[in-house]
């Protein structure tokens, strides 16, 4: 069954590594919805978070193909209910007297922030999972979106699970084992 999933990849923090990852996705015919990359707690590694769609077979194949790349240290699916996922969007809207009130209340309800305000435009920052951002966009688009950008999803597993196995301490393992029992 075709499903959206989030995959986290720990890679060497070197130039050209992102190209290798995205090239592999293209070559194998995997479609990427979004991709984020940034530094981690360990300066040797970067963390890439990819949002993609596909069935179980595709997910497994993707993990195995990613593992074959020499700059890849870890690959993990971020489980839907056992991970926190966030995306940030900046949305620039027309600042008009007649719509301002509606915009401000939408921003308030969605717990966004106005981060820029000019005589003609205003800019909203909103953070949340992808569906929340989609919902906000649906609400404000009648007011005229002038420009927007989204970071794409980034995610961490909940609790004592880490992408980098080396982070796992003895206590972590114990608590995981107890939970699994």
């Amino acid at each position, binding site marked *: 069954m075709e499903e959206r999933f989030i995959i986290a990849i720990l890679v060497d923090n070197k130039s050209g590594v992102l*190209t290798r990852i995205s090239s592999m996705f293209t070559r194998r015919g995997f479609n990427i919805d979004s991709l984020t990359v940034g530094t981690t707690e360990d300066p040797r590694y970067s963390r890439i978070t990819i949002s993609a769609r596909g069935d179980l077979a595709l997910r497994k*194949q993707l993990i*195995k*193909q990613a*593992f*074959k*790349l020499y700059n890849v240290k870890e690959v993990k699916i971020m489980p839907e209910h056992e991970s926190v996922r966030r995306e940030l969007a900046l949305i620039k809207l027309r600042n008009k007297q007649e719509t301002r009130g509606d915009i401000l209340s939408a921003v308030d309800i969605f717990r966004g922030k106005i981060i820029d305000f000019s005589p003609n435009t205003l800019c909203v920052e909103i953070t949340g999972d992808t569906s929340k951002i989609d919902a906000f966009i649906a609400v404000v688009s009648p007011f005229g979106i002038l420009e927007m950008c989204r970071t794409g999803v980034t995610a961490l597993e909940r609790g004592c699970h880490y992408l980098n196995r080396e982070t796992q301490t003895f206590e972590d393992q114990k608590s995981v084992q107890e939970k699994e029992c």
Partner: protein
Amino acid sequence: MKMTGAQITIETLIEQGTEFVFGYPGGQVIDLYDAIYQAQDRIHHILTAHEQGAAHAADGYARSSGKVGVVMATSGPGATNLVTGIATAYLDSVPVVAITGNVPNSLIGRDSFQEVDITGITIPITKHNFFVKNIEDLADTIRRAFQIAKSGRPGPVLVDIPKDIQTGKYDYTPMPVVPKEEQRKPKEYKLEKTARMIKECHKPFIYVGGGAIRAQASEEIVQLANLIDAPVGCTLMGLSVVPQDDPHFLGMVGMHGHYASSKALSEADLLLVIGARFSDRATGNVNKYGRHTRIIHIDIDRAEVDKNVAVDLGIGGDVKEALTELLKLVEPCQHDDWKKRVETLKEEEKEQFEKTTPLDTLNPYTLIQEVQKYTQPQTPIVTDVGQHQMWVAQYYRFQNPHTLITSGGLGTMGFGLGAAIGTSLATRQKTVLFTGDGSFGMNLNELATLSRLKAPVVIIIMNNGVLGMVRQWQNLFFEKHYSQTTLESHPDYVQLAKAFHMKGYRIEAFDELSSVIEQAMKEEGPALVDCHIDKDELVLPMLPPGGSFDDIITEMEGA
């Protein structure tokens, strides 16, 4: 000891066991070639006519010896000319290290003369590649390239070395040959499950690919086939892993596979797949594949498990190791009904063969049979790509592993001559190259290399004046629209051989076959045989593209 980067490169190649470097000099590798000049008593450089030929030669060297092949080229066009050769090695998992020069770091990114981003270009066709930014990393990068190339599932690795790194100076300390990376062991519970599945089955079939050759698992496969009384089939890349006269061996499966082998595979209730990757040419339509069959797949590359065909049990790990362990767990068994059925299929195959293949005319079968009379079990057989390649796969009786050198995955026409040169250097044996006039025309410039080396390569051109394989498809599926598949130039190959100071022969009729092949095969140095065959010869049986094994075409009327 302080050395230049170029010297460090060559010393590291020697240190890692390189006997031959195949290549072609150029502006950004002059320093490397100077270092080769200084070390010529310890490393041989083979100058080819074109970088593509060098890449295929390094590939042929690696396939026939099991060692890492090394190829060297300059920046820009030198590097891009390697691309087809690197991709060929990648698709067939051949350990090759390609060294390219590049413009100095200060000129990188400015579209300088003969600058090309070869690491960018080769990302999808190498296991990994490196751009050397600092001379401190140079020697270790080359060592790592060798390690990656030969570890696990082998493959090509490219190292791009800018000119300023070659001219810079740094300390060099010799190191031992890098070991292969450790592989994870095959899981024991899975091997136990395999043994149980074997015990429960009635119609087992062992299906072997090129991975079994790389793992040198021939003996284990023969033992397993004996123990569980199973027929063995193979892919094109798996040919030669099991001796052709082994009673369990049925031959190649797939689009042009042997009838009995392909049929038995489709009727089996248990497929034991060893070091194969379910290529579309070997499997036919994967959706119709293995409908009644349980499949166990053993491969060193875990990503191959469930990639093309979903299997019942996947075992990752070294094939030889897995089979050695499995042999301890498996109980001997007999499958008499299955054996009888396989015998019937073999009879059918024999009847079809006798019906379609005359033994008293000049045709691919009689030609290959005649050549085989003068070869030894260890004689390497190299092919190009096309009809002749399939005929060799069908008719030549391979005895020893590593004796078929052919471009399977990429299907590279023009592969043969370069590969044959590399093979003959690696094996120091008389080498036979079967080629077609189409494939041969693509890289016949390497005759220059061959004639200079005086290597004992016998080139057999199956000359039908057409691009036979495409023509066959046009014949069968495109209403005989022979679009651009007729080669009307009719070059005189005997004169061509003469031009390169080689012996050239021609066979136009059946009664010339035996005496000419005898003379050519007894030549000390290189020889070329231009053998004329009928342009309407077909490669049969044929599984139509997208068809299943029930759709095999075994004979053609009035083709």
